[in-house]
């Protein structure tokens, strides 16, 4: 029956014996079905009979509508199968339920605000648990899984070296180039050293590191933990008498806090090297002069300012990534969702922390 060229469209035609329904009243002809209408008549119901060749539920919906329009007079001569189907379909009163009304703007803002507050609270709670965990680690250092920690050091530290070095180098070069254009107009070429060094050491090296690590590692933590959560692996760990935090989070936390300062140091070197190359090419400042001025004019405190931020950024990234992973609920979609959120929130918090650090260091006069 299926494909044997059901070309005959559903129609309501006028014949000598009255009106007649013909053709195939099936899904294939839905558009034609929609156009079948009753003729305009002043006097009540029309007399009709059926020569419908095939009928399915979608066709039945349209036919029932016509029947209703025709004062519920059923066509004569319906096949028993068709009549059964019509009866079957007509027992359901089809009414599309209303959608749940959408919140108005004010309510929506309120809803989102409370959601954000609840989320912030969760973050804080998680942060508290992490701190407690670190404290308990001091009392009982044996719960640290060294092998997993080393794994983190390799994956999130060593393997990130090329990309971080390259990006920091380019960043230093760009700053030197843009700054150099301005400095050259005043003949103050030599100050390029301070410009590049201070921005890289104090701000950009830790920041670019944190952003790349949030994108590379924070997201993978979230994805890993969310997947484990979906698979009930986290519950399985707990049922085996293991602390999921000790297995899943502690190695990441310590590992990343260990490698972030190293990566930051690396990006400091790379950034200044980038600035040095541009300075010698564009401003005619030889690398030797650059390094001499760097040694005499740039204080060590600036390196420390940059390095202090690194473990804090690491803490934030691990905190957000792991929390998003463990809070994921639902199906595979939730994994992607938690990954996205971990990156956005990770970078958001890193920049907020960076701003707070600036205020702090300004107060301290560093």
């Amino acid at each position: 029956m299926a494909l044997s060229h059901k070309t005959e469209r559903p129609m309501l035609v006028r014949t000598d014996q009255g009106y007649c329904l013909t053709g195939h009243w099936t899904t294939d002809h839905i558009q034609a079905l929609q156009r079948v209408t009753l003729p305009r008549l002043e006097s009540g119901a029309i007399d009709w009979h059926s020569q419908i060749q095939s009928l399915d539920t979608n066709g039945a919906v349209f036919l029932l509508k016509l029947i209703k329009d025709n004062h519920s007079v059923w066509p004569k001569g319906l096949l028993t199968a068709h009549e059964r189907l019509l009866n079957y379909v007509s027992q359901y009163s089809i009414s599309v339920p209303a959608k749940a009304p959408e919140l108005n703007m004010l309510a929506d803002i309120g809803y989102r605000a409370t959601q954000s507050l609840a989320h912030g609270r969760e973050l804080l709670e998680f942060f508290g648990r992490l701190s407690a965990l670190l404290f308990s680690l001091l009392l009982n250092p044996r719960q640290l899984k060294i092998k997993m920690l080393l794994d983190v050091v390799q994956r999130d530290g060593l393997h990130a070296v090329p990309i971080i070095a390259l990006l920091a180098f380019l960043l230093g070069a760009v700053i030197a180039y843009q700054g150099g254009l301005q400095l050259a107009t005043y003949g103050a070429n030599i100050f390029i050293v301070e410009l590049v060094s201070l921005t890289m050491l104090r701000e950009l090296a830790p920041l670019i590191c944190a952003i790349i690590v949030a994108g590379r590692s924070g997201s993978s933590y979230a994805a890993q933990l969310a997947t484990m959560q979906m698979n009930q692996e986290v519950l399985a760990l707990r049922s085996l008498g293991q602390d999921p935090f000790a297995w899943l989070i502690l190695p990441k936390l310590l590992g990343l806090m260990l490698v972030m300062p190293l990566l930051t140091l690396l990006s400091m070197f790379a950034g200044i090297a980038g600035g040095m190359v541009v300075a010698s090419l564009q401003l005619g400042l030889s690398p030797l002069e650059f390094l001499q001025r760097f040694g005499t004019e740039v204080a060590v405190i600036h390196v420390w300012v940059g390095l202090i931020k690194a473990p804090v950024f690491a803490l934030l990234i691990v905190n957000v990534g792991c929390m998003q992973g463990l809070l994921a609920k639902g199906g595979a979609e939730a994994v992607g969702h938690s990954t996205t959120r971990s990156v956005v929130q990770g970078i958001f918090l890193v920049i907020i922390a960076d701003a707070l650090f600036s205020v702090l260091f300004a107060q301290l006069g560093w």
Partner: protein
Amino acid sequence: MTVVNLKDISTRFGTHEVHRGLSLVVEKGERLALVGGSGCGKSVLLSEIALLRQPDAGDIQLFGLSLQSLNQSGMARLRKQIGMMFQQGALFSSLTVLENIILPLREHQRLPESQLQELAMLKLKLTGLPDIAAWKYPQELSGGMLKRAAVARALALDPALLLLDEPTAGLDPAGASDFDDMLLELHATLDLTLILVTHDLDSLWRVTSHVAFLGEKKVLAKQPMSELSENVHPEIQHYFSNTRARRAAIELES
């Protein structure tokens, strides 16, 4: 009329052969279950019938048309005649249940939204879902409702052949039994041919008109359940001789 005709089907995954020279005929109006031990290729066979996978050798005829003779548009028209319910439902998670059912209708026809919703609502009702399920997302449904919604979407285009992959797996006995009732009712009124893969012995006894037993890479037997359970083939004997199968049979007799 023959709905499905498989001739000498062979399927391989790398070097692992799943089917060799498998043949199966399904007539219109049959309610056929595919059974067999784990890994015997039931689901693979189902996806081949659903045109989702091509066998490595052999011929598939659906509704009397050989797949080899069909071009792209012919295949597309054939697919509309086949509804498939996937094991986990496979409903689109970003759409509500009603939007899930509307999707195939919207793709193939140009109709006003209200009309589409009406047609979709009927499918929802046919599968016994409550009205409130219409605007829910698949994640918010229980297992039983999810499976019904999946059937509703499979029925959207009024297919002549409905394929179901483990329809009652994961449902509680009462839910599974209700689901079987729904299938029987749909079959009785909608002119459907059913092919289902199942391990549920209650379903095998209640829903099916025939059962095809897959083993030794082909169809060992295709018989009504009462005859199949008496079959002397050792593999079939083994499958049905366990206590669970006996209990299901005894329950049905009593």
